């Protein structure tokens, strides 16, 4: 298990190096090294790497890792292997707030957008949680899924209505609709990156309890796990991870759904392996998807959200078919 995790870490480092190197202009590893550690203020390559490629690489890493870890947690929380973080209405809620900010109040400050996206994600997940709760316990995973689906539909309906009225707003929010890790200067996104990293560190101590919860609520309560408290903490962390991701990079499909499955295929059944495994593999995959999207239609770019959907949809179908065979 250790060896596999180290392998994932090496893969991630390789992918991030590739992400720094590739694009419309290719840079060698030496140029990258120089740009990172001893940059010259007049060198165009150094400038490009530090202001464009580096933030983009960091965002892809953090977003990929966050979405994958959040996906792993929501699958355990709902005991549903096909659950993804978007299920809690996080993406739809974030988008609705951004669309409202842009087209109703014509707010154009990125800071307000980020804060709004995070707020929207939190509100949506809060409402879904409240609907799915009965008394002091979650009234079953199915309620969470249904409440999430209903709220997602509602939020998207409002967003679409607003965008139909305001065509200009559509251009502004297209970035979020498609999902992209480009054009995010470090100066504006460092709070989101830090928040995501802190949340990820908070997930780690819960890994052992998540193993217990995976055996079912009744069993978990029987061995003395405070199930409701754990579920609430998991939802908060999922919102933080997926909320910061959607604020930074918009709708990125399938990473939260598929990466946990790939990671689980390689690792023993233990959240203490899954969490770091998902983080490393999620970062790797989103970096690679972004690299491919950057070079596939040069000089244009395919947004990374489109790339993950292109790769993810067939994998998803394969997953469902395999599951179907197993249950038959």
């Amino acid at each position, binding site marked *: 298990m250790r060896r596999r995790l180290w392998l994932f870490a090496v893969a991630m480092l390789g992918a991030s190096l590739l992400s720094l190197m590739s694009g419309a202009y290719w840079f060698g590893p030496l140029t990258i090294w120089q740009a990172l550690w001893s940059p010259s203020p007049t060198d165009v390559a150094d400038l490009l790497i530090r202001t464009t490629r580096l933030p983009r690489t960091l965002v892809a890493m953090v977003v990929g890792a966050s979405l994958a870890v959040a996906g792993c947690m929501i699958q355990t929380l709902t*005991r549903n*292997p096909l659950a993804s973080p978007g299920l809690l209405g996080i993406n739809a809620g974030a988008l609705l707030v951004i669309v409202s900010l842009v087209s109703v109040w014509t707010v154009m400050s990125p800071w307000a957008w980020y804060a709004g996206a995070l707020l929207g994600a939190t509100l949506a997940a809060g409402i879904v949680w409240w609907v799915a709760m009965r*008394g*002091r316990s979650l009234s079953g995973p199915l309620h969470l899924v249904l409440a999430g689906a209903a709220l997602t539909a509602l939020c998207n309906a409002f967003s679409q209505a607003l965008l139909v009225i305001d065509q200009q707003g559509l251009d502004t929010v297209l970035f979020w609709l498609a999902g992209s890790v480009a054009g995010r200067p470090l100066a504006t996104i460092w709070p989101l990156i830090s928040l995501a990293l802190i949340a990820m560190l908070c997930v780690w101590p819960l890994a*052992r309890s998540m*193993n*217990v919860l*995976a*055996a*079912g609520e*009744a*069993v978990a*309560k*029987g*061995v*003395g*796990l*405070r199930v409701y408290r754990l579920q609430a903490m998991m939802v908060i962390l999922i919102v933080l991870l997926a909320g910061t991701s959607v604020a930074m990079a918009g709708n990125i499909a399938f990473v939260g759904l598929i990466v946990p499955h790939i990671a*689980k295929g390689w690792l023993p*059944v*233990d959240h203490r392996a899954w969490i770091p495994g998902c983080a490393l593999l999620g970062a790797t995959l989103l970096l690679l998807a972004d690299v491919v999207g950057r070079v596939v239609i040069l000089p244009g770019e395919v947004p990374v959200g489109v790339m993950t959907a292109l790769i993810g949809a067939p994998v998803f179908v394969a997953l469902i078919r395999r599951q179907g065979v197993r249950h038959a």
Partner: protein
Amino acid sequence: MTTVSAHALTLGYQRQVILDRLELTLPERAISVLVGSNGCGKSTLLKALARLIEPWEGRVCLDGKAINRQPTRTVAKSLSLLPQQPEAPEGITVRQLVGLGRHPHQNWFEQWSEADEAMVQRALLHTGLNTLSERAVDTLSGGQRQRAWIAMAIAQDTPLMLLDEPTSFLDLTHQMEVLDLLRDLNRREGKTIVMVLHDLNLACRYADHIVAVRQGGVHVQGAPKEVITKERVKEVFNLTCRIIDDPFFNTPLCIPFGKDVPG
């Protein structure tokens, strides 16, 4: 030692009352079996005894102290529970599953101690699963899987074990195997065992104490011979039957009549 009792226990789902001011004290170091017709509330009673459901009124006591006033982890050291039809996480090995039973004994500083390892080993031996310990639970047969869950409860190392229909969906051989294992735990280690069973004849064979639940209360309780009579079975299950003496084990044997009532 650990005794479990219910006092004026009232609870239900939504608006419907399932248990109505139920009083019950279960004998220590004995095997108690809860019987009753479908929907009579016996599973609900077991869940309430295991603090899975919060009572509307009244309380469940462990050694005289209200169970929901104690930290759940403390309770988990004296009471283990095997729910009905538990589902193991996909791909988890037998050893890992049994290890989950050690959860209440672990803490931040000592995540996995030698005592934990020894208890898991013992539970595997007890249930005859030591050769299967690295197998994934979902590849086991139904009987082996149920033994793995019981091994998890054994690893929890509690004087009191509650089991919700531990034999359902098992064939007769595996039902006997599970019940023999539980009786062994009771006789050898003095564990108090409380379970819900559907098969009246097996209940009579293995129980020291039978509790018949009807209409949200304890209808009658006592030794199998006192409880399982023609009249009682008619009252509790609305079933016409004849009770004879089991020629080998000398426990009551219920022969249900159904539509065909012999002359």
